[in-house]
């Protein structure tokens, strides 16, 4: 039983046995398994710019993340048109969005997963690698011309490398973006700034000055309050402040950060940039410029404070700016104006920080036994990675749901609404047609991404896109044993960093105790952790770099 395809029985209990199986495959890692027997329905030649159409009607199961805003309907035009164009019928296994991860884990673990498993956020796929239940997709990229084309054209290899496991392969097909897309920043009440002759802050230092000036005018208020504190304290705020100092915080916190000057990994929670982030935020809290509840309150409370005019600065993205704040403010505070400001800058300079990949598709390994395997890979390549497929998934059918003018600008059909582009229209692009569906729509060209943005948001994007992209960190994939070891160290480290970050910021612990804090991290195996990362990094560089 040397073929990979036979090693499939009892995947649910397979974690123990398949680790061994995986070792044997190492040597042939780059060699694609023989798929000549799985070509039923596949196109003999399939290339970039070509419409995929299976040579016979085929169908695949797909795990479907059911969003309550546009609940799954089987009569959506999306399904019909997809079958018409590709000869492929997708059979959705509907899972409520609320517990998608749980069910996915269960289905993959018990070997009952559908062949196509979209909406998987890296590194969630790593949990399934050891069991051998999912396909090392990187071995089959030759079947996916559009994917390869976009990776080459947009130079996405460094990003893809961060998806690779210690065997040099990756198991998730991520959504690919042409450019870094920054959305989260701060919303600022510009009418208040104008009233007091203040400029929109461009840097964090300017923000401090502005807040200070506002505090002088409104001594009883906290000029800034923040949301997204639960479950990660300061999810967005810590993230964007840390970025300005070259560190990682909030939602983005990771234990290891690449220090490009020194050419090595350092521990994030102890690096100078992280300390500077804390110092900055501590200054805001100490001078009562930032509401100390920002890090722990529910979003609801933060929104109430901001919307009732008790606070003038809050974390926001394009959607919350409008839905959570502008519509409410306009009713409650006459004359209120808010703007999402470009992410304030810090000492590292004009960079935009983010990744060009997003959640993606896993494929069950049992797909290898399916006679339509090759057709399936071509289909996935077309739907998720070709320009035509992406346009179809996002905008739908030309003439029915949208029109395109000579310059290539998209316009919704008269009777179709989406994100308020056609308010009052009787039908909805997502609810009634199934397009712009989170399961099938992501990635793509900047042009496609921007096609649904408002003028205001495009202006924000223009400022952000003028900044240089922050270089991607080198990959450091762990082996299974290393991952286990790392997991044991990560939790106590993370708890300690998170707790003390808050204590320092809120002033419950004095910053003079920083060195003591670093020693405490040391006692929790900080250095051993970084050594582990370094080992993994160097091994990967030697073997696959």
């Amino acid at each position, binding site marked *: 039983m040397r073929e990979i395809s036979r090693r499939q029985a009892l995947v*649910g209990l397979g974690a123990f046995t398949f680790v061994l199986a995986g070792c044997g495959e190492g040597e042939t890692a780059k060699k694609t398994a023989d798929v000549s027997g799985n070509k039923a329905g596949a196109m003999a030649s399939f290339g970039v710019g070509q419409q995929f159409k299976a040579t016979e009607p085929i169908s695949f199961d797909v795990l479907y993340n*059911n*969003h*309550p*805003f*546009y*609940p*799954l309907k089987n009569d959506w035009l999306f399904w019909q048109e997809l079958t018409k164009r590709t000869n492929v019928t997708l059979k959705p*296994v*509907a*899972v*409520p*969005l*609320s*517990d998608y991860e*749980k*069910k996915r884990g*269960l289905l993959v*673990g*018990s*070997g*009952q997963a559908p062949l196509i498993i979209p909406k998987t956020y890296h590194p969630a796929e790593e949990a399934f690698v050891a069991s051998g239940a999912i396909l090392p997709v990187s071995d089959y990229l030759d079947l996916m011309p559009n994917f390869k084309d976009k990776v080459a054209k947009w130079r996405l290899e460094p990003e893809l490398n961060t998806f690779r496991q210690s065997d040099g392969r990756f198991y998730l097909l991520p959504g690919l973006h042409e450019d870094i*897309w920054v*959305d989260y920043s701060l919303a600022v009440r510009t009418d208040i700034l104008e009233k007091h002759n203040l400029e929109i802050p461009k840097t964090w230092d300017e923000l401090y000055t502005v807040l200070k000036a506002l505090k002088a005018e409104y001594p009883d208020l906290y000029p800034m309050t923040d949301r997204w504190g639960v479950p990660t304290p300061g999810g967005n705020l810590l993230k964007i402040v840390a970025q300005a100092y070259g560190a990682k915080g909030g939602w983005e916190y990771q234990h290891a950060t690449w220090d490009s000057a020194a050419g090595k990994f350092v521990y994030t929670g102890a690096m100078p940039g992280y300390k500077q982030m804390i110092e900055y935020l501590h200054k805001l809290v100490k001078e009562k410029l930032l509401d100390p509840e920002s890090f722990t309150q529910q*979003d*609801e*409370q933060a*929104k*109430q404070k901001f*919307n*009732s005019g008790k606070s003038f600065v809050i974390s926001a*993205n*394009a*959607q*919350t700016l*409008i*839905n*959570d704040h502008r*519509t*409410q403010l306009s*009713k*409650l505070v006459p004359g209120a104006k808010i703007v999402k400001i470009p992410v304030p800058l810090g000492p590292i300079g004009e960079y935009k920080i983010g990744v060009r990949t997003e959640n993606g598709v896993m494929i069950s390994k049992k797909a290898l036994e399916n006679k339509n395997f090759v057709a399936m890979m071509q289909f996935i390549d077309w739907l998720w990675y070709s320009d035509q497929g992406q346009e179809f998934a996002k905008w739908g059918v030309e003439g029915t749901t949208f029109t395109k003018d000579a310059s290539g600008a998209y316009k919704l059909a008269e009777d179709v*609404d*989406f*994100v*308020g*582009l056609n*308010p009052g229209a009787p039908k909805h692009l*997502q609810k009634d047609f199934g397009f*712009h569906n*989170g399961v099938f729509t992501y990635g793509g060209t900047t042009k496609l*991404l921007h096609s*649904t*943005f*408002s003028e205001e*948001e495009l202006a924000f994007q223009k400022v952000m896109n003028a900044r240089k992209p922050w270089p991607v960190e080198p990959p450091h994939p762990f082996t299974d044993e290393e991952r286990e070891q790392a997991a044991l160290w990560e939790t106590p480290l993370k708890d300690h960093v998170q707790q003390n970050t808050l204590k320092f910021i809120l002033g419950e612990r004095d910053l003079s105790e920083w060195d003591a804090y670093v020693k405490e991290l040391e006692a929790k195996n900080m250095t051993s952790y970084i050594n582990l990362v370094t080992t993994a990094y160097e091994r990967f560089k030697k073997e696959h770099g």
Partner: protein
Amino acid sequence: MVTMARSRGYRVFQGINAVILTGVVIVTLYPFVNIIARSFSEERYIVTGQVNLLPRGFSLRTYEVVTADPMFWTNYRNTVVYTVVATAIAMVLTTCYAYVLSKKHLKGRTFLIWVAVFTMIFSGGLIPNYVLVNSLGMTNTIWAVVLPNAISVFNLLVMKTFFENLPQELEEAAAIDGLSTYGILWRVVLPLSKAVIATMLLFYAVSFWNSWFTAFLYLNEQELFPVTVYLRNIIAGATGAENAGAVIGEASQVASNIQSVTILLTVLPILAVYPFVQRYFVSGVMLGAVKG
């Protein structure tokens, strides 16, 4: 009973009791009243935190929106069916098992008790359970929901204890009068056990009504989901922002008044059952058949 003279200490005790209990009532009732108020309010008042005990911007619009969704009613019907069938099965199985276990002369009784108690402490785990249910062909059928949790060991033990406390003499008398074993159970024991049966009915019905996890695990089609899964997804949808970067007005979010209405409609029926069954709780355990 003659009214007893109450000492001062007792009155103070009662006073303090009343204060504490009133506090408890407020704490438990407030969220519920708030939900009711929200369900009749306009979204904008909710978002700005202006809705407390009374609705603001009174509107029935949300009720119309929620009840207009056919999936809501499909799932609602499922919940009713699942609850009724599951409770019926659970009651039959639990009563039979408990009655058998209450007989001290039963051979292998300890073993049978341990079989039940064992499952309280150890279980196969999620994935093996799923594999089992799946290979029995029960996924995507009502049986996946109503069978795996048919016997709650806790309820079983409560019932067993109740049966043990029934005077043996009654059953002996019935046996002498010529009733078979099943006749004794049906005509003598069960009529005397109304209290515990009502209690168990309520326990089971409430737990099946509220349960979402088994249905979520074993069912793959939204037409089969109970309303609790529907509700859970709606609540999750209110926080999951998608299509960020998009424009104006409408969001991919489920409004909080829709959540409130759904919550309310979901808990209402089971809430309405409570007062009717609860009186059995009080009288239940105290009841005895033989006086003196």
